[in-house]
């Protein structure tokens, strides 16, 4: 049944007769892996380049076009012990990478200019108190201007552009006072230099840009890294579909290469990767990822199936109506758009701070100027003093206060198994006072598990596990997993819709429906103990056993719920599943507020009610049916097993089996928010100390430079504390 894998979708043909492919690789963590992979791949004939990128966990490969099949690389990596899959850079990630390079270029220009201007400024500062003649000072000022003006024009672009965009849409952001301050400082310095004055502020202006660009670059790199990890995870899911390329000819292609109108085959035990309509075959499908409902639905000719549905019993042919990126119910898309719009109204802490800050700063500068004119100073002196106020108050440390904390905190969260989709999510997570969990796949593990294994003799369990390997049915797969069956039994045959059977040493073995194994009575006994479980029966000659299979709660669910309560966070379950199943989960976790059979629209309605009461809701869910409510909530989180769309909508994604990252995210975010506020206070406080000097007109460029670098370093050091969570954490 193994069809050819077709990766041509991912291969880029270069001009020089070479082909290029990027692979995402799992488990590359050290220099040893890097060398092993590069050597292993270079040993393949015709390969001209194999280079591992350890930051992004990717391999770039080039080879001479011809015989070599890209799937060879994947097999080779598998031999070396690494799971790999071709990777296609998403548009958003490419744009982020480009802007990261631009920021780094700006930072380089600004930093070199700062160093050179400083080299000229220090003689002037020391010369002013010793024996520098005015002509030499002017010469140095002109040289500074020569360096600083073009450098600021280039390196200031990110700020000028953003300020211009904000002003055009009638807003004020942090970049507006920065742009005004830098422009005025440079303009005034040129005028002062022309007039042979003692002070010029070229150094302060260009240093300001350098520090701010450090903050921007950190921020950008953090986002880039998260994007890269998320992109790899998506690629490593290796979503493929079996496509008909002729009447009976099939080929395994990446989902990205499927187009509407194609016909794909979905075998039992496979997840459908596309939206479409069944054109042939009959089966039962599990749509729990889409609706939360764990009972199977019937599928036959004409039934619409959605991406994420799990095919249970029969093989289906599906005509694709919408491929990878368009796969979704129209209803969910519509709800999603509305909900996302609502959230974009959230104003980040940095922008709130700058909205307050900019008018105050500009008013102070204006008042200083008017004050000095009223006190009898010349217009020239008054303007020079006012510009000095602007330079001193320029939000240098303010621009670093938030990105530095975000960078450090997101790194710490990453180590705790949480990926940030959006940087400002930290602020919103910190404010959360109620967490709403979805049940299926979130509180419970996404895969089924055998729950009565202690009642079954180990040798029977082992035999059943080996027999179960012959079936694609998800319940059988759960038995095989639980028994850790490795060697399938020879000669096992699948009886469609019934189960599997084989003959071992003259004794017949059967695994499947209770009726197929003659174990109806036993199955009813097991079901009466746990009505929510699915049962699979096993017969070995005359002996009968019944396995109860169900989704189990995540191992640490109870302790996570307790930890959240200890932090004063309310808990609630909203699930699309049936009432008894939800009730059982809620009871075992001690959660009193739960709702079952909830539709996506109901979930949003419930979140809206809470919002109106002023509750900040965090939604944790995984299914497509959760996507709109994830977007509607104040902040949202998804497990990595979630459907594509929910992952894209969630602010945070957590990795692995435990639920503990939910608590970690809240702890780190609360700490980070506290540090962000502290940093804002530090930055503003520092400025408040220096402003009286500026208003009094006694600020020299030396004081401006010292104030700026001092406050920036202080803020950066404080941000480093975000690596650890609060001591009160158990």
């Amino acid at each position, binding site marked *: 049944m193994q069809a050819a894998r077709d990766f041509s979708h991912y291969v880029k043909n270069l001009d020089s007769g070479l082909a290029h492919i990027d692979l995402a690789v799992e488990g590359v963590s050290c*220099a040893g892996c*890097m060398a092993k992979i590069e050597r292993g791949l270079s040993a393949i004939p015709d390969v001209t380049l194999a280079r591992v990128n*350890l930051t992004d966990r990717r391999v770039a490969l080039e080879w001479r076009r011809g015989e070599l099949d890209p799937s060879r690389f994947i097999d080779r990596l598998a031999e070396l012990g690494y799971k790999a899959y071709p990777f296609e850079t998403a548009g958003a990630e490419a744009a982020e990478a480009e802007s990261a390079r631009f920021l780094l270029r700006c930072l380089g220009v600004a930093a070199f200019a700062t160093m050179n201007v400083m080299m000229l400024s220090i003689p002037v500062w020391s010369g002013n108190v010793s024996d520098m003649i005015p002509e030499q000072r002017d010469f140095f000022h002109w040289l500074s201007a020569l360096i600083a003006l073009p450098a600021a024009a280039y390196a200031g672009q990110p700020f000028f552009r953003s300020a211009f965009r904000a002003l055009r849409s009638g807003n004020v952001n942090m970049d507006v006072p920065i742009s005004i301050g830098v422009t005025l400082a440079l303009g005034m310095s040129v005028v002062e230099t022309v007039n042979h004055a003692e002070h010029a502020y070229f150094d302060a202006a260009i240093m300001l840009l350098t520090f701010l660009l450090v903050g921007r670059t950190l921020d950008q790199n953090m986002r880039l890294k998260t994007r890269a990890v998320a992109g790899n995870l998506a690629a490593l899911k290796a979503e493929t579909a079996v496509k008909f390329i002729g009447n009976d000819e099939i080929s395994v292609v990446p989902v990205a290469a499927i187009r509407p109108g194609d016909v794909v085959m979905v075998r039992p035990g496979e997840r459908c990767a596309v939206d479409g309509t069944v054109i042939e075959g009959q089966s039962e499908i599990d749509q729990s990822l889409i609706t939360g409902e764990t009972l199977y639905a019937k599928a036959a000719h004409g039934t619409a199936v959605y991406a994420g549905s799990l095919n249970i019993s029969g093989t289906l042919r599906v005509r694709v109506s919408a491929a990878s990126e368009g796969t979704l119910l129209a209803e969910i898309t519509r709800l999603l758009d509305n909900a996302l719009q609502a959230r974009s109204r959230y104003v980040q802490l940095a922008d709130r701070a700058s909205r307050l800050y900019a008018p105050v700063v500009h008013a102070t500068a204006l008042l200083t100027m008017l004050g000095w004119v009223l006190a009898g100073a010349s217009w020239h002196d008054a303007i020079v003093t006012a510009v000095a106020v602007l330079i001193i108050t320029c939000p240098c440390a303010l621009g670093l206060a938030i990105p530095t904390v975000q960078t450090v905190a997101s790194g710490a969260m990453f180590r705790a198994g949480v990926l940030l989709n959006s940087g400002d999510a930290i602020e919103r997570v910190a404010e959360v006072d109620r967490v709403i969990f979805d049940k299926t796949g979130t509180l419970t593990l996404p895969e089924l598990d055998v729950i009565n294994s202690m009642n079954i003799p180990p040798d029977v369990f082992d035999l059943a596990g080996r027999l179960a390997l012959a079936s694609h049915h998800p319940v059988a797969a759960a038995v095989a997993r639980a028994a850790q069956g490795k060697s399938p039994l020879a000669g096992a045959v699948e009886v469609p819709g019934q189960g599997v059977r084989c003959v071992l040493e003259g004794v017949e073995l059967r695994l499947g429906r209770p009726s197929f194994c003659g174990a109806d009575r036993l199955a009813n006994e097991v079901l009466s103990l746990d009505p929510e479980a699915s049962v699979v029966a096993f017969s070995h000659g005359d002996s009968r056993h019944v396995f109860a299979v169900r989704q189990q709660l995540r191992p640490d669910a109870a302790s996570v719920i307790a930890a959240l309560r200890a932090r004063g966070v309310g808990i609630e379950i909203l699930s699309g599943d049936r009432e008894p199943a939800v009730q059982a989960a809620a009871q075992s976790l001690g959660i009193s507020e739960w709702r079952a059979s909830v539709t996506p629209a109901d979930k949003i309605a419930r979140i809206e009610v809470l919002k109106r009461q002023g509750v900040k809701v965090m939604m944790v869910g995984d299914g497509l049916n959760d996507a709109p409510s994830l977007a509607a909530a104040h902040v949202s989180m998804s497990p990595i097993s979630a459907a594509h769309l929910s992952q894209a909508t969630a602010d945070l994604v957590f990795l692995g089996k435990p639920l503990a990252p939910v608590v970690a995210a809240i702890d780190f975010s609360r700490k980070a928010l506290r540090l962000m506020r502290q940093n804002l206070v530090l930055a503003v406080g520092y400025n408040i100390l220096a402003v009286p000097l500026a208003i009094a007109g006694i600020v020299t460029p030396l004081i401006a430079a010292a104030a700026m670098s001092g406050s920036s370093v202080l803020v950066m050091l404080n941000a480093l504390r975000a690596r650890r969570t609060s001591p009160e954490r158990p």
Partner: protein
Amino acid sequence: MEVLVILVPLALALGAVGLLGFLWSLRSGQYDDLEGAAWRAIADDEPAADAPPQTPPA
């Protein structure tokens, strides 16, 4: 103070060389993989030492 005529252009030229060097390194992708580059510095030679028992091409 005539020495300034030599020293100042020299200082500026050195600064410009540094900047050009940085821009070149940026363009040639040296900042694309900061973690890997840190390891390559110490790891690149080591594999060469045990290169002979290289796995034969499969």
